């Protein structure tokens, strides 16, 4: 385990240090005193393990492909945005747009997630152990979102595809988001995925998918389009 102390350093210097150690062959790194700096651990493309010993700012683990990043605190906006593959875990709460536009990998929020969690997801899995905010899964394209707690308004608004599972209460559904039956295959996916991160599954889940009414313009469905456009 290689330690990097952020005290008195810029994000630039910290990231350079991280890359230097990875290039030197280190596979386990601990970033101490991150103090909510932005853009830590961006664009890491190697299967290394990175621990942030504290809270981080915006875009931690953004644009990564392969590493495992654990944030031992909370995070700002856009955790793991556009990730291709890897695992990013935040032990407390996540700011807006966690897992925005990820195309693969898994993001785990052990606390609650703020607005637009899983926005525009193109693959991968987002797990929120607590509650999630307004417009969770907005314009989601693929992948799965698992919220063990409650979700705020406009869940799954304008989603193209993908699956959203909610263990608690759904405040309301967004445009063209509809309830669907939880299949045996879904149950198996939920059990396996949550067990992987030692998360106790709620008693039951509700499932939300796309109603597919926004897939094509339809003049006969004006009420839907008035809301959506």
């Amino acid at each position: 385990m290689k330690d990097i102390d952020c005290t008195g350093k810029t994000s630039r210097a910290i990231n350079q240090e991280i890359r230097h150690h990875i290039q030197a062959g280190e596979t386990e790194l601990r970033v101490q005193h991150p103090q909510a700096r932005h853009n830590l651990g961006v664009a890491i493309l190697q299967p290394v393990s990175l621990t942030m010993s504290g809270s981080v700012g915006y875009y931690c683990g953004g644009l990564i492909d392969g590493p495992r990043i654990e944030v031992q605190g909370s995070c700002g906006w856009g955790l793991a945005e556009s990730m291709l593959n890897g695992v990013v875990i935040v032990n407390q709460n996540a700011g807006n747009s966690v897992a925005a536009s990820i195309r693969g990998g898994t993001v785990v929020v052990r606390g609650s997630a703020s607005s637009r969690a899983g926005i525009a997801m193109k693959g991968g899995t987002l797990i929120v152990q607590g509650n999630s905010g307004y417009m969770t899964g907005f314009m989601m394209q693929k992948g799965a979102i698992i919220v063990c707690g409650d979700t705020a308004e406009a869940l799954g608004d304008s989603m193209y595809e993908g699956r959203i599972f909610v263990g608690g209460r759904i405040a309301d559904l967004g445009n063209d988001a509809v309830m669907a039956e939880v299949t045996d295959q879904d149950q198996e996916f939920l059990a396996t995925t949550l067990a992987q991160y030692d998360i106790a599954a709620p008693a039951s889940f509700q499932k939300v998918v796309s109603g597919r009414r926004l897939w094509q313009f339809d003049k006969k469905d004006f009420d839907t389009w008035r809301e959506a456009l």
Partner: protein
Amino acid sequence: MSERPVVRHSTTWKPETIEDIQAKADLGRYRIRGFSALRDRPLPSFDDLTFVPCTLSRIPLEGYREKCSTRTVLGTRFAKKPIEIDIPIMVTGMSYGALSYNAKVALAKAAARAGTSTTTGDGGMLAAEREHSDILIYEVLPSRYGINVHHLRQANAIELTVGQGAKPGTGGLLLESKVSDEIAELRDLPPGVDQRSPCRHPDWFGPDDMLTKIEELREATDWQVPIFVKMGASRVYDDVKLAAKAGADVVVVDGMEGGTGASPDILLDHTGIPTLAAVSEARVALEECGLYGTVQLIIAGGIHSGTAAAKALALGADAVYMGTAALIALNCNKPLYVDDYQAIGAEPYACHHCHTGRCPVGITTQDPELMKRLDIDAGAERVGNFFNAATLEIQMLARSCGKSDVHALEPEDLRALTLESSMIAGIPLVGTNVVFGGGPGWKPSSER
């Protein structure tokens, strides 16, 4: 013999207006089309300005002999590797999806041939586009379709796109006929949907957030390549200042004449400001920030010739983007396959049916048979030739104004042919020494 009745057309209920109402009565929604603005009323444009070449008060360069540099450098503010291109004309971002494979590769080859850059678009990077282009700009758009860190790191510059001139404030459209299985897979979408791109980025909203996003992109590319910020021309004076202060190396402003593969037509005709006004506001904005010359300015939107490009440079741009003009050089709107134009309700020279996916000349289509009509190498040669011709036009005008570098063109080399262009661009009206103005692009003659 009865008198022939006088046919009187209303100026309110013109044939186009009647046809528009009846089309919407059938569609039940706004109309969607491609191409560019089709307004009845002409927009103020670079055509409203004229160059005032050397006579006795200035000395020209020999038009066909003396050197006139066209070398253009972009991204000198923070990037370790600014872009160096041979000409001040670049290919703007147009997606693989909106355009065919053949069109994208032809543009990449043409750009390489002309010593300039091409840009990806709202669908990610095409491997062949990277392979055939020397300088490739990777767009990071609100949709993030096809976003891939490996592609990002192969780029020579990153363009963080906030909007486009054809439809500022809204997202892109790709209608079902163009969302083929391949395009759908690249964008992680269901095949055959009407794809509606978001207008906001998923993980940032305003300029304060954008500052952090720009830093993230720099970290992802190790501060090597320039970061552009592209916007549709709207409140340019304020928006350019915000982009510059957020840390952009290069600001791209796309005027309302900018083209698109598909857009609600009201947005094409009734939103944004003309490119002439955009460049004027952008220059003053950068000057007032003390960043003119430090942050480079690229102007786009209806740039159709070397003359328009030269006027944009004189008004303050470092380079221009061409999109529609490059497609026209590829054969867009050329009278070939006339029956196929008519089958989609168009005519050569008046086709704006890119949204249908039935492009008769194989440019804005995903149909393999139509695509074959565009020969990649022949198309690349035509676009390369057009860029060369436009470059010669810029040089010709620059030499006539006594400039040995096209970037030395300046507002003093221009005069306005109309009152409104004088007011917009802050250029004296011909026959007077008076600048009629008052907007952000205007300065009294005592301060010029």
